[in-house]
């Protein structure tokens, strides 16, 4: 996956030593990496500096002192606050300098002899309101002007992430493009940090039904089932907790029958048998679906699958209760262009 992204000419936004190392090992030049974490671990910062990664973000004075000490020739981006109230994962409560502080931070950077080259913002992961980008671009212009007045050679704007891969991308892109053209001349380089946009829809997860509990309701005379799978919210369904997702269960294998793409999902109402779906750990929070229905009677040994499982799944999985966080990925390519780039 990273090899393909590198071959397509993308840059990389890294948050830690391990991410930087992984990207460098794919053969990416350090000039294509931005260490976009405004509150860095000292040892990681030292590693990044030694590896030749120069682009990095900051949003507070202590980070400037740290940078002066460990990476004095860094190309710095001042990360500013944005209104992220319409995003799935809000980030501005954690990172970003408010516009009241930017002047002071830029003056401190000047005094320390550090090189500020740009402004960065992040409207929050899974953004849904294009207006958030407009306001952020306007604010970034304000800070660009502040920095230029202090004599910094400002050449890059980092518009962060928040891009979803669904139908909202085109309108979002149109609004962002128009704002950029209105506030930043063509000689200013613009970079972004898309993540889920590229991978979310590319991954399908298959899970095995390891146990089943039959629940009979004597009053209603109905039978429903609790299914226990070998993956849950402490594993690849961590997106339910960390990314507010609702993965949709679909039936892959029922007895000897393969039913991939043959049926409606477990949330299609005319189906008849009711299920709840659980992960393998002993924690009651480990639930994938509290109620869904299928026409089939699903049993131990059957398989379910879930589409759009590429974002905040595998990377935030844990080994709680001793279950594995190392799951195989089978790569295929439905595009000759992608295969050609990878020499497949």
């Amino acid at each position, binding site marked *: 996956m990273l090899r393909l992204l590198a071959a397509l000419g993308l840059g990389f936004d890294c948050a830690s030593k391990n991410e930087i190392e992984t990207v460098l090992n794919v053969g990416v030049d350090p000039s*294509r990496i931005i260490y976009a974490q405004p509150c860095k671990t000292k040892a990681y910062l030292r590693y990044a500096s030694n590896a030749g990664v120069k682009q990095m973000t900051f949003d507070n004075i202590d980070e400037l002192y740290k940078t002066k000490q460990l990476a004095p020739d860094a190309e710095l981006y001042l990360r500013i606050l944005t209104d992220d109230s319409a995003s799935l994962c809000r980030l501005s409560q954690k990172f970003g300098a408010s516009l009241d502080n930017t002047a002071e931070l830029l003056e401190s950077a000047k005094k320390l002899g550090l090189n500020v080259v740009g402004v960065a913002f992040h409207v929050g992961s899974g953004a849904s309101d294009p207006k958030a980008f407009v306001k952020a671009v306007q604010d970034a212009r304000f800070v660009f002007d502040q920095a230029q007045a202090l004599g910094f050679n400002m050449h*890059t704007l980092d518009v962060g992430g928040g891009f979803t891969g669904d139908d909202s991308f085109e309108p979002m892109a149109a609004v962002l493009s128009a704002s950029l053209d209105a506030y930043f001349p063509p000689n200013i380089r613009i970079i972004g940090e898309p993540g889920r946009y590229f991978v979310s829809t590319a991954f399908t997860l298959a899970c095995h039904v390891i146990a089943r509990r039959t629940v009979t309701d004597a009053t209603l005379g109905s039978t429903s089932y609790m299914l226990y799978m070998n*993956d849950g919210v402490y594993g690849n369904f961590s997106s339910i907790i960390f990314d507010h997702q609702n993965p949709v269960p679909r039936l892959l294998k029922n007895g000897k029958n393969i039913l991939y793409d043959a049926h409606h999902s477990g949330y299609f109402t005319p189906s008849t048998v009711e299920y709840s779906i659980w992960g393998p750990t002993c924690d009651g929070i480990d639930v994938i679906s509290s109620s869904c229905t299928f026409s089939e009677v699903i049993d131990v040994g059957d398989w379910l699958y879930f589409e759009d499982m590429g974002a905040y799944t595998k990377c935030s999985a844990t080994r709680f209760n001793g279950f594995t966080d190392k799951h195989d990925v*089978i790569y295929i390519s439905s595009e000759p262009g992608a295969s050609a780039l990878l020499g497949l």
Partner: protein
Amino acid sequence: MAPSAITPTEEYRLSYQDLKSVDNILGATDNHSAGLSKQLIGDALKSRVEAIDPNTCDIGEEDAFFVADLGEVYRQHLRWKENLDRVKPHYGK
């Protein structure tokens, strides 16, 4: 390309036109790719799960697994180039 403190621009050597022309040569079309994607994902899922017998398999063989379509990433890249070409993507998690 050697790292440089001065030039801020990376190499993005594949333009939208480059990629589209490659696709035309290779005969890829949007509808064809979407159908092919489903077929390839289905085939990969099928061959893996049919090879597993929970009554006899080793520990870990029946673990959950992913199928990832690199073609989908490629299509998303083209879509980015088409709609947001001014912004150079830096992939992040």
